[in-house]
């Protein structure tokens, strides 16, 4: 039996605090960096979550909060207005592993301008507010006053500002890389994890609507500055991130709506998720060449063919797009690659992803039964791959739901209506509980829900004023990262 440092801390913290406080009515220090709730009546409900710190970005509150799920309380919070952003929109988030998240951990936060759906994407007054940003952040709980601080403005360091998903490398890419993506610019940036990040590789994806081809290109920083010229709104194809269904909307003719980069847990491979054309470019993370373009729709071939390579541009033929997709990622064990097809088809494509050559990956099954109101959206893993969880989003007047899928049968085995506008799923470090957030369509009910992964019981619901679009449980190890928001988003 293994016994992690996190589990050790979970036990000793509670015992130590109880011993120090002594009597039933002892009052803990007003400046205790971790609150001892052991004498409080809610303790019996939440103590099982000891060791789980959840990061919650507030999309329209402009903040990020670190929540100790076991008290529960907010350990620290930060408003990105302090970093100089007018109307910050903290969007997606990923946390690096920490053996003691109560003491310290690093995380990455992306940000997009408020000219996005849900607010006012086009009116002239909104054109200059907010910004695209990627920040490396650090939580410090080592003293008597917890804090969250900016470590680096990665967009300023690299010259490229992207505002959607961020994911940290795992497996062969662990301790090395972090990836950022953006569907307004259709770009992906890979950097090192250093406090002063170095550019590793960048991609741009463009659609040719006349030739019906997708071009995936490496883009390079200016040789004189060593940086790109894509800060702020530079490189932006459209003024707002496409919301679900906008894949059918008229947009920039070259738009593909790149959404994320997800990492294979065991092989040097990653996936660029391309929403509008319903495909995923599988990239070799040793050469950074796109080696396959998976076409994930039911009824489509397993992949679209490479037509030509010209310099650093790879051209794939995309003769027909049967449906867009949203997210796609790997099961924790790497055996399967799952793609959330949505809008025109609502299903989850299941590729077997064990072969080192992604051109040989085949669709083996589809998770179905979502109808034409419910859209597979985000994916969440557990460490032992016994389940896969998905957010199934819906437009008003429908709430959407969270569902559990059995990877042995690829059938839905449970579903929960957790609240309006559900977003991402993650799991506690022991893999026993699923965390998920709902955002109330950016202005209404919002909260964090915790579900027992096996009994299907909703065991906790915590309020949040933040309208969060994402969240992450700080992983305890690089191995634990494989079930975090790296293999899937």
């Amino acid at each position: 039996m293994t016994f992690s440092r996190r589990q050790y801390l979970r036990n000793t913290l509670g015992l130590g605090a109880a011993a120090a406080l002594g009597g039933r009515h002892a009052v803990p220090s007003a400046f205790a960096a971790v609150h001892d709730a052991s004498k409080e009546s809610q303790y019996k409900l939440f103590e099982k979550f000891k060791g789980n710190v959840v990061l919650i970005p507030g999309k329209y509150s402009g903040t990020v909060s670190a929540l100790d799920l076991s008290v529960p309380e907010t350990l620290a919070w930060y408003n990105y207005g302090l970093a100089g952003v007018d109307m910050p929109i903290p969007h997606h988030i990923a946390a690096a592993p920490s053996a003691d998240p109560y003491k310290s951990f690093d995380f990455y936060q992306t940000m997009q301008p408020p000219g996005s759906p849900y607010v006012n994407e086009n009116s002239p007054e909104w054109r200059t507010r907010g910004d695209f940003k990627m920040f490396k952040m650090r939580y410090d709980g080592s003293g008597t006053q917890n804090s969250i601080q900016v470590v680096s403005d990665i967009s300023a360091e690299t010259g490229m500002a992207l505002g959607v998903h961020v994911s940290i490398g795992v497996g062969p890419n662990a301790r090395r890389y972090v990836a950022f993506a953006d569907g307004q610019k259709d770009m992906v940036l890979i950097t090192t994890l250093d406090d002063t990040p170095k550019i590793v590789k960048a991609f741009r994806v463009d659609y040719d609507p006349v030739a019906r081809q997708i071009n995936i290109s490496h883009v390079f920083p200016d040789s004189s500055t060593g940086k790109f010229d894509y800060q702020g709104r530079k490189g932006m194809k459209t003024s707002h991130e496409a919301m679900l269904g906008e894949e059918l909307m008229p947009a920039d003719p070259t738009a593909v709506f790149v959404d994320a980069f997800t990492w294979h847990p065991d092989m040097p491979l990653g996936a660029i998720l391309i929403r509008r054309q319903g495909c995923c470019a599988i990239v070799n993370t040793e050469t950074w060449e796109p080696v396959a373009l998976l076409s994930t729709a039911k009824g489509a071939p397993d992949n679209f063919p490479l037509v030509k390579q010209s310099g650093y541009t790879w051209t794939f033929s995309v003769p027909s797009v049967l449906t867009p997709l949203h997210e796609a990622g790997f099961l924790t064990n790497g055996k399967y690659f799952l793609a959330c097809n949505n809008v025109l088809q609502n299903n989850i494509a299941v590729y077997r992803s064990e072969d080192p050559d992604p051109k040989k990956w085949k669709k083996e099954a589809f998770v179905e039964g979502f109808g034409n109101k419910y859209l597979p959206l985000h994916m969440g893993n557990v460490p032992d791959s016994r389940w896969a969880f998905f957010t199934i989003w819906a437009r008003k007047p429908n709430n959407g739901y969270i569902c559990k899928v059995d990877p042995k049968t690829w059938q839905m085995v449970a579903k929960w209506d957790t609240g309006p506008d559900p977003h991402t799923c993650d799991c506690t470090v022991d893999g026993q509980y699923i965390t998920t957030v709902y955002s109330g369509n950016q202005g209404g009910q919002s909260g964090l829900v915790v579900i027992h992964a096996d009994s299907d019981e909703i065991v906790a619901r915590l309020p949040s004023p933040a309208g969060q679009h994402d969240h992450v449980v700080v992983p305890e190890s690089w191995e634990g990262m494989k079930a975090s928001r790296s293999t899937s988003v």
Partner: protein
Amino acid sequence: MRSAHRTGAMPHCRPQARHLHGIGLTAAVLMAVTLATLASADSSDGLFPTADQVGGQVFPTGIKQGDAFPTDFKIYDDTGQATDLAQVIKDKRTLVTFFISAAPVSISELKKIQDTAKAARDTQVIFVNADTVGVALIGGQSKAISETARTVRVIRQEEKLEHAMFVAPNDALSPTGLSNRLGLRGLPTSYLVDKNGKVERVFVGPQAWKQGDL
């Protein structure tokens, strides 16, 4: 109900009344692009279309050379007044350019077209914003046309445009929405329509315009 339940029944939705306290932001944005087509079931009950309903796939063929150009969709002039497109293009060879204020490339194309059109005096040019702007924070649905018309006027001023400009609301999720009827996916898209209402040429995306194109 929020409790877990096994597959077999759809998740219990909360009472609809909980969602009717004002217009939700998501719905408002989607509905903002549908002002003229609110009767469409696909925009009001949360349904998404199937591929068959929108031309077979994400990028349908759409209106092409030789087709009759449809004029029965609603448009508004740049003051927000309803206008009859059939009357606007009647008996006139017309370049109808659809753009969207959210895509910079489609805005920058308008001036290029204006410059090209100077040498084609017998061709009328009109610019049509194929969308309405989001209005969730500035008055809601009732402001969609007036706010979009205002945005169009700002574009006209900033780009120094002289041709008539219009607003055409679109419902991308409705089979009868403008973009699905025309097959519009990338903007700008321009249709050169002859005096009899037939499409002479279709220009998808920004063009390297040259004399003779119009």
